[in-house]
């Protein structure tokens, strides 16, 4: 029995059975055990029944995405076995309730030996737990067969249930321990490996989703107002911010619609606070009219657009990267904007802070372009700190009496196109913001000269914006400068791309990965330099290679090789590696 430090576990069962919570708990066990962990959940759009599964990848080396095949399947129902048996590694095992699911039913290939029947339900009865405690027993058993540390899990259970009283804690700990004991007693040494305990550290990392990272970024940036209408996969930001709102002094508002949400945000921004709204494609559609308003009145605004499978309702709980062009061109008329696509939870946090600063510094809307896979997948990372964070509100002046000689003009023409910004309530100043073409004063004006002057003013920001963006990573070239193949992608494909790089290297294909982070303004020169003399292949979660089009539009470079996936699921590393090799 060897020691491994790269394991993939799948936990499956019905919706409503706590699959995701179980996945997170087991992930945290690995995290606290010192491993790197990535976790992701796959669920259809229903509340009970159906099939949910959570995939955990844990390793001594950094992990960036789920794996194609699994070492252990924790089957909380029979369906899980049928669905995933093909993705079980030959040397892997299955935990299931042997009393509930007759082994004969499972129809398992002969060479699969590691059938770990555990009487989950009976153990739950023994410890007098509620049905959901089955998960705890199963996780205990999983830790048992994986040869991992049950005490970490017990600690996690203690923290989780301490609010519910010592009795609940004890029951859960007993359940976990019973599952663990059963497994070690019956199946010790059955697996060909044991997961390595790197170091039994405790609380030195956090395990969180993109949604939570964006929300924390907003908190760190001093966002004070978040209005949204619930929509998967963006709802997580709303839920998390609501939960934190008392601690963070933030007003979080469930609006009656996305139209209301964004107009409220714009109102609050006009009044002077940092604001954000978040939604997915259909909701973003409804926001576009006000996006144009924000562009016109030069009111800072951050919008998180979490992509999911379209068109229309599509697959509401599945991922996609098909709104890139829409984010770049959404809304009528022309105005400068920024579109940033973070690729992992760390970037979700950092780029959200950047988004707030850019919105304020340039008085423009900034779109954070994310997707379900990024927003609802978990990664273990060092905790965020805010000591080194800069908050730059640009030309916003404090709420002190205005002392200018001329009456204040909200849209004063300036060399850099950005006007000093006051907010209503400022003594001696009145702030006029108009969605129609307006004069420097903010009052309506409709002659040609004003129209073109103001249009010029808005686009004057662009050169300075480009300069400012030299300070942030507009692209990242991961891996060697020069390679046999350059994966070109954006957003959540970052994770799989980094994995694929390693896999290709093992096959003696030198690969690197060009991550395009700023979609607007497009990093033309950077991309040109990065792609010079490379052999690029596009990897995108959409049908029309939208980044490819953008690259060609801006750089003239046409990338003809591409791997596209648009069935709602994220790329898996092995599969993508194969497809890339086919294209080479």
């Amino acid at each position, binding site marked *: 029995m060897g020691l491994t430090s790269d394991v993939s576990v799948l936990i499956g069962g019905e919706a409503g059975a706590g699959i995701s919570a179980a996945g997170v708990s087991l992930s*945290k066990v690995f995290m606290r055990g010192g491993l790197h962990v990535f976790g992701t959940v796959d669920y259809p759009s229903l509340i009970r029944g159906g099939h949910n599964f959570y995939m955990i990848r844990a390793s001594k080396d950094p992990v960036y995405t789920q794996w194609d095949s699994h070492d252990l399947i924790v089957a909380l129902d029979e369906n899980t076995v049928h669905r995933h048996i093909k993705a079980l590694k030959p040397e892997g095992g299955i935990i299931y309730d042997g009393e509930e699911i007759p082994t004969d039913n499972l129809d398992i290939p002969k060479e699969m030996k590691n059938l770990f029947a555990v009487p989950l339900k009976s153990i739950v009865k023994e410890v007098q737990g509620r049905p959901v405690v089955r998960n705890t027993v199963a996780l205990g058993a999983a830790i048992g067969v994986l040869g991992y540390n049950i005490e970490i899990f017990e600690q996690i259970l203690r923290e989780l249930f301490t609010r519910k009283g010592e009795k609940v804690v004890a029951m859960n700990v007993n359940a976990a321990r019973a599952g663990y004991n059963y497994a070690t007693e019956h199946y010790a040494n059955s697996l060909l490996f044991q997961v390595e305990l790197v170091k039994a550290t405790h609380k030195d990392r*956090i*395990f*969180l989703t993109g949604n*939570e990272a964006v929300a924390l970024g907003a908190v*760190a940036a*001093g966002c*004070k*107002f978040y209005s949204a209408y619930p929509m998967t996969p963006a709802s997580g930001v709303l839920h998390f911010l609501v939960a*934190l709102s008392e*601690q*963070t*002094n*933030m*007003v979080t*508002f469930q*609006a*009656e*619609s996305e*139209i*209301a*949400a964004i*107009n*409220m*945000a*714009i*109102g*609050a*921004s*006009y*009044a*002077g*606070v*940092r604001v954000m709204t978040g939604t997915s494609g259909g909701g973003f559609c409804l926001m576009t*009219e*006000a996006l144009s*308003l924000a562009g016109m*009145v030069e009111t800072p605004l951050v919008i998180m657009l979490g992509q999911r499978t379209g068109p229309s309702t599509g697959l509401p709980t599945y991922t996609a990267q098909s709104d890139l062009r829409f984010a770049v061109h959404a809304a009528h008329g022309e105005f400068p904007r920024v579109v940033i696509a973070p690729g992992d939870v760390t970037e979700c946090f950092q780029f959200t802070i950047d988004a707030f600063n850019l919105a304020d510094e340039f008085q423009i809307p900034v779109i954070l372009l994310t997707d379900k896979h990024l927003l609802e997948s978990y990664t273990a990372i060092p*905790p*965020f*700190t*805010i000591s080194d964070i800069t*908050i730059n509100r640009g030309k916003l002046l404090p*709420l002190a009496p205005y002392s200018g000689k001329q009456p204040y003009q909200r849209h004063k023409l300036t060399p850099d196109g950005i006007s000093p910004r006051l*907010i*209503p*309530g*400022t*003594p*001696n100043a*009145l*702030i*006029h*913001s*108009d*969605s*129609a073409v307006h004069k420097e004063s*903010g*009052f*309506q004006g409709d002659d040609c000269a004003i129209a073109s002057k103001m249009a010029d003013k808005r686009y004057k920001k662009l050169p300075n914006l480009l300069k400012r963006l030299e300070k942030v990573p507009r692209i990242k070239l991961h891996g060697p400068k020069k390679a046999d193949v350059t994966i070109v992608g954006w957003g959540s494909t970052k994770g799989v791309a980094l994995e694929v790089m390693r896999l290709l290297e093992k096959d003696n294909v030198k690969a690197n990965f060009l991550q395009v982070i700023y979609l607007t303004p497009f990093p033309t020169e950077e991309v040109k330099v990065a792609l010079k003399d490379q052999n690029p292949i596009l990897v995108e979660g959409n049908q029309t290679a939208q980044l490819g089009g953008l690259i060609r539009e801006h750089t003239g470079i046409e990338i003809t090789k591409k791997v596209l996936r648009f069935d709602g699921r994220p790329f898996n590393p092995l599969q993508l590696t194969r497809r890339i090799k086919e294209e080479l």
Partner: protein
Amino acid sequence: MELPTRSNVKTNETNTWCPGCGNFGVLRALQSALVDLKIPREQVVLVTGIGCHGKIFNYLNVNGFHGIHGRVLPVMTGIKLANQDLTVIGHAGDGDQYDEGIGHFPHAARRNVDVKLFTHDNKVYGLTTGQTAPTSIKGYVSKTTPLGAFPPRLEPLKIALASNASFVARGWVGDVDHLKELMKAAIQHRGFALIDMLQVCFTFNRVQNYQFYRDRVYKLEAEGHDTSDYYAAIQRADEWGEKIPIGIFYKEDRPIYRSSLPQIEKTPLVKQSLKVEKFSELLQELM
């Protein structure tokens, strides 16, 4: 702190309303109301929709936000929640608020966010050249209803009452003093307030003109209407014929939306520090 005066509440912008437009009466009433109430100009924000009514943004010299068609209410809500020290007044059109923006109306009313909505109910789409509005009277002939508006019109007061608005009134532009007093009462009311204003569109509405209203309008207060009687208010709101009531239909003191938000009980958001205390505590759950 600059108090509003008859002259400083005016701007130098060219007025582009038609001669005879009822909007002039609205503007005068609002100017007087602000002067009377002595709210410093910088503490007042005027939020307007798109339509002839929205141009009031250009003529009233307080803070102003001329937003998009139909969205006066959410913009006001955002402003008020960001800075409750501001007096937030919205001017919307009947097309603007009762067609495009009707979706915000019942919600703003029931939430009781402390904002004021003054609708220019001219029963016509003015700025887009006279199309039928949701409040157009049955039979109104326009480019979009050449055979006359068919359905019963939308009745803003009744919908406001059904949405549990805490202040529901109707004014008319032919009686500027009365309208002014209504505006003052609405602004002083703690909570959401609606004044549906019978505003004459001199150019397109040839039926609901000054004479039409002069002949019909009567004041609720003169009839001893009890503004705390919800059902009486509904019945009055149903009157539209030989007699048309103006005044306050209904008024109720009840908690405003803000009272559910401990975050801003003491200090408006806009005056709070952006720095988060104890950021690391927020991460506990994720460990």
